[in-house]
């Protein structure tokens, strides 16, 4: 662990927390452009957060302490998962503590709390959203794990830093298995972040929504934290994707210049990734909820195929 590593760790965490709403704003803007609408400003998510933080919190009479503490727990676990993913440098102190499997666990923890909080007040929509979220989650998680295992097979480690170093800092080799894993990962991320084929982030049409149905009871700073956590989740997923599939430009251990150079590289990659996400959302239509198992089953299948292809072609 070096001074550069500790600096990278703090820079990454601050960057993720501060820039996550910007990424959401960028995706929304791209989507509006593609739909020929006049786009809201790229800073709009910040304005929404500022507005919500100033508003009064209104709680249901039967809300338990869990309901009140859930936003902080969700935000905390997502911020921690953002700190684990190497975005600027690979020499992160936290990497000793948590690997890719722990990362999946942290994401699952956030999902568990949001589902519990949604059921806490006992409204019909909250329960409905929670049940749908858990269905999507239990299908998406194994696929996400399989994607990580494919990367682990290539780099012989489940530590994200080692994976990034193995893929980025070796001579360029084309891994066909990573192509499969990449497609699977995109499908899983779309489902996990409540994006279009599975859920529509812009909808308030009650019967089709998943994420929005769960947070209907929240207001004020709680809602702000949950919205912020949702942006953070998108940011984390995009960073995982960049770390696994396009890890070029991430600095190695003790490399101060690399750390400085990693910042514009990350910004450029995120901008392209956000635009690609908006494009995917534009090109696909929302599925019926009963088609979601098929969609995520396909993602799982592709991730398993990635492992098989690795054994066959690269073993």
């Amino acid at each position, binding site marked *: 662990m070096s001074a550069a590593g500790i600096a990278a760790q703090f820079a990454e965490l601050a960057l993720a927390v501060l820039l996550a709403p910007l990424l959401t704003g960028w995706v929304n803007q791209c989507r509006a452009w593609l739909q020929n609408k006049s786009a809201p400003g790229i800073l709009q998510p910040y304005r929404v957060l500022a507005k919500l933080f100033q508003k009064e919190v209104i709680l249901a009479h039967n809300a338990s302490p869990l309901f009140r503490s859930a936003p902080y727990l969700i935000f905390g676990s997502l911020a921690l998962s953002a700190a684990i993913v190497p975005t600027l440098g690979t020499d992160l102190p936290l990497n000793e503590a948590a690997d890719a499997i722990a990362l999946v666990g942290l994401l699952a923890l956030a999902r568990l709390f949001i589902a519990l909080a949604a059921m806490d007040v006992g409204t019909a929509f909250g329960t409905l959203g929670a049940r749908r979220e858990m269905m999507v989650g239990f299908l998406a998680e194994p696929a996400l794990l399989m994607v990580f295992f494919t990367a682990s097979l290539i780099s012989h480690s489940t530590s994200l830093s080692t994976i990034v170093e193995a893929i980025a800092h070796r001579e360029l080799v084309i891994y*066909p298995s990573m*192509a499969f894993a990449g497609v699977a990962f995109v499908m899983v991320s779309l489902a996990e972040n409540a994006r279009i084929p599975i859920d529509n982030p812009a909808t308030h049409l009650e019967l089709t929504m998943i994420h929005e149905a769960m947070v209907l009871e929240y207001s004020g700073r709680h809602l702000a934290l949950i919205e912020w956590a949702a942006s953070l989740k998108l940011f984390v997923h995009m960073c995982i994707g960049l770390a696994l599939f396009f890890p070029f430009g991430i600095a190695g251990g003790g490399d101060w210049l690399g750390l400085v150079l990693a910042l514009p590289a990350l910004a450029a990659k995120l901008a392209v990734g956000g635009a690609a996400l908006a494009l995917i959302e534009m090109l696909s239509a929302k599925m019926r909820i009963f088609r979601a*198992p098929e969609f995520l*089953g396909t993602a799982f*299948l592709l991730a*398993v*195929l990635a492992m098989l292809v690795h054994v*066959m072609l690269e073993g």
Partner: protein
Amino acid sequence: MLQHFGPQVINLLAAVLLLLAFAMLSQRRILSLINLFAAQGFVLFLSTALVAALTDQKHLYVSAAVTLVLKVTLLPWILHRLIRRLNVKWDVETLINIPTTMLVGILLVILAFNLAAPISQLAGTVTRSTLGIALASMLLSFMMMITRSKAVPQVIGFLSMENGLFFAATAAVYGMPMVVELGVALDVLVAALILGIFIFEIRERFDTLDTRHLEKLKEH
């Protein structure tokens, strides 16, 4: 450069071929199925041309060109025309539901990889490991023929099975003799034409393209 990255790109194309085979297996729409078949043909063309450039075998360029003409343009065009003439745009009906088909597909892939592993040990080419993928995509296309009830997807399954076979011949063992390749290409074209006539005949008799009706030819 080419010698270093060539085999890797062929491996990548093999993976894309497998991906397309799975996409065809899960595809419900007939027009998308034809487009996927054309895409598979294009991947085959790329890999054949690449093998030709890698091994410097002139006749492989010819078979790449035949692939491009036949499988990327001519056969999809014939199929599109067939669809227009038959005036069918239905969603393809599957006999087993699609998630189950995909799971069986994974088992087939494992089977194919296991079968091919000892054979590819014997081969001397750099890209010998693609044999398993070629075998897997053949088996997947075969399964598509089995699980679809309508005639047109069955024909596409047959044609894409031949794609897998061709890929096995070019990528895994660097090509067959020219005469065999041309013969196979001609056979496929003739088969597509005959199957086209066959489809018209089925519709003439039964007013539908569902091949399950063929079982009723038995005496009652």
